[in-house]
């Protein structure tokens, strides 16, 4: 009978482990946007990306629609190129869309905000691999302070 009892207890052990795994996978881990496969990429050139990192969020009006896939430096004009991986579900942004690097909160992490532009008659949608033309760089606090002091000197 001891082996029967140990089998039951091992069964309970396995069930507890599965419960722990379920808790981790459902409540703790992000239900990753990149995990469902159907993504397309957009590219954007910035002057300065500040503290943006790979895997930072891409948001439209606060809704996360994708993640930063990778960040590279253009060897010709030495500006960073950010490659965005965006869920296929959101695939109809007009070509006039602008993109900027924003900060969540005063000291929070940086993310990419997309502002969808107007779509006129002959303006198409952004397709896989397109560059977004209209970009605004990250605000760097030191630059801001420098500009502020400089403008005070003028007065």
């Amino acid at each position, binding site marked *: 009978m*001891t*082996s029967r009892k*140990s*089998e039951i*207890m*091992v069964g*309970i*052990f*396995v069930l*507890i*482990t599965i*419960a*722990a*795994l379920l*808790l*981790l*996978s459902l*409540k*703790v*881990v*992000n*239900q*990753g946007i990149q*995990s469902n496969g159907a993504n397309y990429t957009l590219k954007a050139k910035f002057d300065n990306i500040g503290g943006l990192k790979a*895997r930072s*969020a891409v948001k439209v009006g606060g809704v996360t629609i994708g993640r930063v896939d990778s960040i590279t430096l253009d060897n010709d004009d030495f500006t960073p190129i950010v490659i965005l991986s965006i869920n296929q579900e959101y695939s109809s942004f007009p070509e006039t869309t602008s993109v900027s690097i924003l900060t969540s909160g005063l*000291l929070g992490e940086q993310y990419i905000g997309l502002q969808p532009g107007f779509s006129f008659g002959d303006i198409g949608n952004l397709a896989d691999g397109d560059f977004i033309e209209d970009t605004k760089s990250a605000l760097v606090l030191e630059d801001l302070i420098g500009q502020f002091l400089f403008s005070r000197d003028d007065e």
Partner: protein
Amino acid sequence: MINWIANIGARSIDRIATTGRSGLMLFGAIFALPKFKSIPLTIHQIYIVGVQSLLIIIVSGLFIGMVMALQGYTILVDYGAEGSLGPMVSLSLLRELGPVVTALLFAGRAGSALTAEIGLMKATEQLSSLEMMAVDPLRRVVAPRFWAGMISMPMLALIFSAVGILGGHLVGVDWLGVDSGSYWSIMQATVDWNEDVVNGIIKSLVFAFFVTWIAIFKGYDAIPTSEGISKATTETVVLSSLAVLGLDFVLTAIMFGI
């Protein structure tokens, strides 16, 4: 002088021979798996090694999660960042404390018992009698214990992390008043399945391999006297704790280093 040099030589040869013996034993134990007869034996060992460690794992996981929430809260609240309590608790549990503390507790709770059991089997000549009956003790005694350890420890580490995160929720949200939504949602935004959970499981598999190996070998190689067994048991706990802490640094450097 010559004696001193000879002593060094003798010790080195002894160490290398021990390592070789432990490797041979491990090889014999691992490749003894494919036998359906040994599955009930392994399940019984999972009961002894895993299920009976469950209580200490759950209790220490709960309290470590609670303490981390309490300590983290007092620091984070100064910066108004108490919402980051969730990722702090869950990342440190999943990446470090879950695998490491589980392995240390496992070495103390189950590893020492394995060493003492196998060592006593050797001292009372049960292992030799098995050999007399043409039963391979590696296959009958060592292999089920090894596989039970390899299976149990990652499961225990997962339970430890999950219980710790719940303990952090208990203190952080229910007691200190962190918003429950931000506890879970910032955690979900930060924790990654592959990078955090899977790496934690890989860590605890590596720890399981070394802790169980050390425990079994120390028992199998013990001097068959009561003194020898007590020495072997102590060595198991000391050596496997050191191995876990050292390996943890190496694994962390590989997984999360730049």
